[in-house]
Each structure stands twice: as C-alpha cells, then as structure tokens.
C-alpha cells in the first residue's frame, strides 16, 4: 500500500516548499531591514495561530499573549546568557547564584520557555475555566500586568526595568520560519482532530458539547495551554532576535496587535491568522509615516507618535461592527478549493 | 379592534405560521387554540413584532407591522407572556409599577383596583415576585399587563403549569375582565377551558387555521374532542 497524497495535501506541500525556498532566497539576497520584517512576520505567525486557537477556535476570549511572550523571552534570555555576561549586566541587585548557573542551548531554551508558559497557563485554568463566564479576559489582562510588575520588582532575577541585554542572536529566518511552519502544522493538526472539533463545539454551544460527553474544562485548558506554550516559544525567538529585552516591551499593545491580526484574518481561521499577520505587520511598517510629521502642502502636522495605534483601534472597531467575519471567516485554505455545493 | 391578514411567521428555516387571517372585535374574548407547536405563540409574537414575519396587522385603524414592541405596548397592546415571566427579583408592587411605566398618573388608582381584583397578591405586595406560587404569579402577570390600561389584552397559555383548581380561578378572572369591557385575545392549548369563556375561537394546526366558529358551538364538537385527546 503506497502513500496516497490528496489534492489539498499537494497544495500544502507546495506551500511549504515555496516558503522554504523563499526563506533561503530572503536570507541570501534581501537587505537587513527586509529580513527583520520577515523575521517579525514569522514570529507573529507563531503567536497569531496559537492565539487564534484559544480565541477563535475554542471561542474563549483571552488577552494573554503579552504575559506568556514575556515569560518565554525571559526564560530564553536567562538560559542563553552565560554566567559572566549576567554578572556583568545586573546593575540594580546582584543576581541570585542559581540565575548565574542557568544555561542551555537554543533548542532547549525555547522548549523550556514554552513549558514554563504552559504550566502557568495550567495554573490559571483552574480559577478561570471552573466557572463559566467571561473572567478569562480580565484574568489574562491582569496576568500581563502582574508579569510586568514581577519583572520590575525582582531585579535579582530579571535585572528589573533595565532588562537583559547582549542576548546571543540565535534567531534567523531558518529558525523563525522553520518553527512557524511547524507551529502552523501542529495547530492545523489539532484543529483537524477530535480535540479541534471539541473546541469548536465548545465555541458553538458549550451546554450541548457537555451533553455529548465532552469534558469542556479539559478542552478549554488544552487550548489555553497550547497557546501559552507556543507564545512562550515565540517569546524566546523574539528575545534571541532582538538581543535585548525589558518589561516595557511586553505591554498590552503586544496583545492588541495580535487581536487585530486574528480578527482581521477571521476569528477561528488559521489561514486567516497568517494572512492577518502579513497584513498587520507589513501594514504597521507601512503606517510608520502616520507617526511622523506629515506635509499636506498647505500645512504640516507635527510628529504624532502613537497615531498608528489609534488607526489600529479604529480598524478593529470597524471590522467588528461591519465585517465581523474578517477576511477568511471560519474557512481555511483548503475550503477555498472545495467546489461550492448546493443542497 | 384588530384584524390580521395573511400572516406568515418565520423562525430561521421553519415557517411557524403559514398565512392566517383572524380578527378580534371590541369587547369580545377570542381564543386561538391548538396543540403545542401549532403556531399560537408565534402569532402573538408576530402581533408584537418580536419575530420575522410578513402580512398585514391592522389595530384600530393603524397598520402596526413596522412598529417596535415597546411602541405597540404604548399604543394599547398588552401581553401576559407564556410562563408568566414576572420579574422575580422585584417585589410584587414593583412589578405593578413596571406595568404602569408609561401610565404614571393612573398608577395608584390601578394598583388599588388590582389589589381588589386579586386580594391574594395584595397580601404579598412587598415580597419578591419569585416567591409567589405559580397561580399567584399568573395573577400578578395579568394585573401587571392591565396596569397599562390596554385596549387589547393578550394572554399566552395562562393555564400553563397550573393545577386545575387554579386554572379555574384564573379563567374566572378572565371572564370577569371581559365584563369590565376589556377585549381579550386568548391563546390556549387547554381547549375546553378556552372555549368555555370565549366568544369566538380559531383552531390552529401546523401554522394554519383549520377550523373556526362561535365557541359555544365548538364545545360540543366531536372532532375537537378527538383532536385534543388524540383518540
């Protein structure tokens, strides 16, 4: 019995091959600025598809990414920096001895970032998913704040508000792009399994899902922890790309950007999350002009830092009011190739 | 008073009411009877414009098809909804106050009239409505609906979930209301109690009117008896 590859699998393979070829092309020929944007797109793809899993697929409104990305970034940074580098840069307080001893290679650093985030997510699941309601949003919003407060108030671990610098720059397009492809693959595998079906059932009608024997607490927890795991990994990649991190990097704006991405792409669609990432991250670069002084010929506006964020929030509100389904709705790429059938 | 022509009601895919005509004349009790799912409640909801529908509804000369529920109530409709739906977290008296929301000047007078009509709820006027028994809740729901001094009172399944003895009491009250000149549209699956107090009746089945006539004549009708016992 040979391996039979269906039509949509051919399409997937073609997409993966094209992406790999593009990664090679970009890292060989593109300028540094473009590569940085591509790296950003790859990392945000990881974050967006995982954020979409809890928000879009399982329908549980959460505002967690900045918290878990921060955790991942710090864990990776602490594992990648060697003892000397740490001793040298802790200015506020001396680091704990065990901090100096932390050390791992890049893969393990990313893995631990993910696991640590997922464990924290697990501990949040108990208060939040045990009661039905909308507390997930507010608890995760608060969680993001707490992580920042902890990072600022524990200089023995995090070097406080100064953050960590000189993190070895391990991330490149092969790492970010490769992990992005794996994440998309893994998430799609979940979505197209009994777990993904159960998540959608919880989103559509939680009571009925229970009436079919689904353990909805477990399903929501799985979705939440999986998101947290990949957000931790994404945070690790980000730390190893930027080479310096500080608590101010992980404000609510970070989460907000991801929210726009998945809403614009279509809540619940992994394909949509990827399209949204390209549009928003690319668009954010393009919209930089908004923050700068503008010359309308007859008059010139002063520089308005933050104007982009105003535009982002207006886009988000407009999409919710007038095009709630976003670009893809709940469809995936393969659904576009299905012939339209009539009953 | 009210004339309905070619009314269709839709719930998503289901056409719950499939083109019915009926009318209620001033001072009468008219009942719509039929088994569960025949389209009775849908008809009432359509009169109050809370569902998707097509057709013509003429209420004392006004075309009401495009008005919102709350303006229709201000125009003189009043509904005692299925399952009573009293505000369980409000006191009995506050429930009556809600009924007179747009009728401030007559509130005190009407309140006293209701307490006279239903002495049982007067005793409990400061209790939360949720603590009343089913029968008392039904009486409260009726008096709340009367607080707006409606031109047309509609009752949706007033016998629902009530013990037979209480059903008797409720229907006696309805008959009394008619004597005071209130026009009533009654929707009921308990066909015989409805027929007993009404002047005219329409029988609904699967969204269509299958029979109509003067209530007195229908009581003795074998077919009706058969239908509602399934014999």
């Amino acid at each position: 019995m040979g391996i039979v590859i269906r039509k949509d699998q051919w399409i997937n393979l073609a997409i993966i091959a094209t992406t790999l070829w593009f990664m090679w092309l970009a890292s060989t020929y593109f300028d540094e600025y473009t590569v940085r944007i591509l790296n950003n797109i790859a990392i945000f793809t990881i974050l967006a598809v995982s954020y979409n899993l809890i928000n879009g697929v399982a329908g549980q409104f959460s505002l967690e990414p900045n918290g878990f990305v921060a955790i991942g970034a710090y864990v990776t940074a602490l594992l990648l920096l060697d003892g000397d580098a740490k001793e040298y840069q802790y200015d506020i307080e001396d680091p704990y001895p065990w901090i100096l001893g932390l050390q791992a290679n890049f893969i393990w650093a990313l893995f631990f970032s993910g696991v640590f985030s997922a464990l924290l997510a697990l501990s949040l699941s108990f208060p939040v998913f045990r009661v039905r309601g909308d507390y997930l949003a507010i608890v995760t919003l608060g969680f993001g704040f707490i992580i920042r407060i902890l990072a600022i108030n524990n200089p023995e671990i995090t070097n406080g508000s100064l953050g960590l610098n000189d993190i070895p720059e391990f991330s490149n397009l092969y790492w970010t792009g490769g992990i992005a492809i794996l994440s998309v693959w893994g998430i799609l595998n979940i979505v197209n399994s009994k777990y993904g079906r159960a998540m959608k059932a919880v989103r559509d009608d939680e009571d009925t899902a229970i009436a079919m024997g689904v353990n909805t607490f477990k399903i929501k927890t799985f979705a939440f922890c999986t998101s947290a795991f990949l957000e931790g990994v994404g945070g690790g990649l980000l730390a190893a790309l930027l080479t310096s991190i500080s608590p101010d990097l992980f404000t609510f704006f970070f989460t907000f950007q991801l929210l726009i991405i998945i809403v614009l792409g279509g809540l619940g669609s992994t394909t949509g999350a990827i399209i949204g990432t390209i549009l928003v991250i690319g668009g954010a670069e393009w919209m930089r002009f908004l923050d700068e002084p503008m010359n309308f010929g007859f008059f010139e506006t002063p520089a308005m830092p933050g104007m982009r964020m105003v535009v982002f929030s207006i886009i988000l509100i407009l999409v919710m009011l007038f095009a709630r389904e976003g670009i893809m709705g709940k469809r995936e790429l393969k659904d576009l190739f299905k012939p339209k059938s009539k009953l | 008073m009210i004339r309905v022509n070619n009314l269709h009601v839709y719930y998503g895919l289901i056409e719950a009411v499939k083109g019915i005509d009926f009318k209620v004349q001033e001072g009468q009790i008219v009942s719509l009877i039929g088994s569960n799912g025949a389209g009775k409640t849908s008809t009432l909801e359509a009169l109050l414009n809370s569902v998707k529908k097509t057709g013509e509804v003429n209420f004392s000369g006004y075309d009401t098809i495009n008005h919102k529920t709350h303006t229709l109530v201000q125009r003189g409709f009043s509904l005692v909804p299925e399952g009573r739906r009293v505000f369980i977290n409000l006191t009995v008296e506050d429930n009556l106050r809600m009924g007179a929301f747009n009728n401030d000047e007559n509130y005190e007078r009407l309140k006293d009239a209701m307490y006279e009509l239903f002495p049982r709820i007067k005793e409990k006027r400061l209790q939360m409505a949720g603590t009343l028994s089913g029968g008392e809740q039904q009486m409260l729901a009726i008096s709340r609906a009367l607080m707006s001094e409606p031109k047309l009172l509609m009752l949706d399944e007033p016998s629902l979930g009530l013990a037979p003895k209480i059903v008797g009491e409720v229907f006696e009250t309805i008959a009394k209301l008619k004597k005071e000149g209130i026009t009533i549209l009654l929707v009921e699956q308990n066909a015989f109690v409805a027929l007993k107090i009404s002047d005219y009746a329409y029988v609904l089945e699967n969204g269509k009117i299958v029979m109509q006539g003067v209530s007195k004549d229908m009581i003795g009708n074998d077919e009706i008896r058969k239908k509602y016992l399934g014999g």
Partner: protein
Amino acid sequence: MILELKNVTKKFGGVTAINSTTFAVNSKEIYGLIGPNGAGKTTMFNIITGNYQATDGEVIFKNEKINTLKPHVIVRRGVARTFQNIRLFHTMSVIDNVLIGFDFQTNYTYLESIFRLPRFFGEEKRIRGRAMEILDYFGIAKFAEHKATDLSYGQQRKVEIARALATSPTILLLDEPAAGMNPAETKELADLIRKARDDFDLTVLLIEHDMKFVNQLCDKVLVLDYGKTIFEGLPANAIKDKKVITAYLGDFTHDSC
C-alpha cells in the same frame, strides 16, 4: 429495570417544579413522559442528565446512583439526549456534529493528534466509518460534508438523533422530537425511533405533547401534572383516564357536557 427515579423533587426558589416523582423504565422500553406544558418534563430530563441537581430523591441508572455525577460523565455512562429546539453546532458540518458524539470514544492523545502519529489515523478512520454508518442509517449520508444548519428542519432533527446515538447510549432521551413536524413526518419519525430502538438496542424515554404520536409509539406512559404523577400505564388507558382528561382538557367533563 434500567432507569429508576425515586421520590425526585425539584424546587426553584419557592416553586416546586417536580413533586416527589417516582417511576422506572425497563430495558428496551419506549417510555413517554406526557403532560401539559410547564408540567416539569424538561426539568425531569435535566435532572436525569445531571444539568440540574434534584432537591431531593435519587436517580438510579444501571443500578448505580447517578444524580451526583457531572453531566459529561453521565453521558459517558450511556445517557444521551436531544433538545426541544434543535441545538446543532452551527459552524460545523453534519459529520463533524456526529463525530462530537464519538469524542470520548476516540482513543488517541493530544500529542498523537499534534504529531499525527499512526493511532490518530487509525482512530479517525474508525470513527468516521461509524459516523457514516449512522448517517447512512438515517438516510442523510449524502449531506455529511454540508453545514448542519443548512439542512431542512426534519433532516436537522435526524442529525440531532444521529449525534445522540453516536455516544453509544443505553438510554436515549428525546425532548419533543415531533415538535414542528407535519403528520407524515411525525409518522416517519415514529417508525424510525422504533426501528432504532431495535437496531441499536436502546431504551427510549421521550417527552411529547402529541397524543397520537405517543399512542403510536410508546409502550408505557407517565402523565405528569404540575410536578405530580397522575397516571402511569398503557397509553391506550391514559386517554380514557378521568384525571388525565381533566388535566389536559380542563374540567369540561362534569361542567359542560
């Protein structure tokens, strides 16, 4: 005896919805719960499925007390249900709706699904096959890939029953399955339920208003009125019973005739 309710009482605030009701359903029986609207029938279902906690009394299923178990656990023990107003998962296809019923009978882990390990493929193939069999049984296999809520009302009702059967129940609770159907559809449904009872080795407990439907289908009926049992026995006798007639039709028997 497969399901037994002993002195079950349910109070909401001060109102008693069910007043010390006792009844027992035998294996392979089609048992009808009837009574006027608001008589506490759906509440009874919710107590059996664990959605409500009985204020008093016991629910015994296959010789075990189940009234303290969580709803999803009770389903896994073999109690399946449908809803009065059809509740399908509206963004999902017909087959995915049915596959949710197989959820807890599908044996692969989360990691096996993420990494697409062999057991994932084997199990998916197995349950898909079984889901298609059930859809085929109901004559709706050709709609498998359609969005469930695009189907007609009667077909949606069948999807809902198919989905409930996918949980491999011992007892199936049907909440007004014939509501909104015309006489021809009702007849077809009655035949289908009876056939499914035989083919799937089921016990059926159903709520219904349509006396004709109950008469055609049920082996035994329980008539509830305002939370109290007023009749238990053969449906043919129910419609001759004085108390039942009074509850259903009002007291016309001694007044107006």
